[in-house]
């Protein structure tokens, strides 16, 4: 139970960072925090219910997170080339 609460708070912190940060890399790091909170939950349930599926889901999530980080950083590099900055509030070309 304690670990569920820890992962809940960790997810909350990540959510707060993703909502408030202006730097694109910082937003990416907050998203990683949220993904890790979910992983912690999966491993905890795997341990509590003595079922390996939770750990397998965690491995898949880690792989998806690696893909996400690679694509995200490529996009951030493009953003930097386009605007000379990675402030997400400046990337507002599609904003009406």
């Amino acid at each position: 139970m304690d670990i569920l609460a820890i992962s809940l708070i960790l997810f909350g912190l990540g959510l707060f960072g993703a909502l408030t940060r202006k730097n694109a890399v910082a937003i990416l790091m907050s998203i990683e925090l949220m993904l890790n909170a979910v992983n912690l939950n999966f491993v905890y349930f795997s341990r509590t219910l003595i079922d390996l599926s939770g750990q397998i889901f965690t491995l898949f999530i880690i792989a998806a997170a690696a893909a996400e980080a690679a694509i995200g950083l490529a996009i951030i590099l493009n953003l930097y080339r386009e605007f000379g900055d990675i402030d997400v509030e400046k990337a507002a070309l599609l904003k009406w």
Partner: protein
Amino acid sequence: MIYVLAAILLISAFLTVTLKNIFHCALALAVALLTLAGFYFYLDAPFVGVMQLIIYVGAIMILIIFAIMLTTRVGDRLLSAANHQVMPSLLAVIVFVLFGIAAIRKLDLVAKAGKMSDPIAGLGRELLTTYLLPFEVISLLLLAALVGAVVIARKD
């Protein structure tokens, strides 16, 4: 023991989302990810813990630090790190956490007795039988993502 780990984890996560210098944020995130690996070892998931160390602390952190170095000039003045939505976001997060706490309190989870017998061998067996298709799909996803990253980040 677990509470010391939890304290380190939550403090470093808090620093990750609040520090102004983006490089310091990355270092705090590395500490948080290392602590999570400790949690996985504590929870009888040694393979997941090792993967956390190799992939998150080893690969993703390096990627993030590279991105920071490629996009931040050393002499840059540090702008305010947060946008104008701190209070609304804080409110939203607090409401979310309260709902989560209510859900956890209602949860009727009965811990099964005993330990997993040889989780690493079990993982290998499951990955190549029950989860064979997702396993192959995720490898394809990784390949596509890496090729895509190269194409997107290419100049011109």
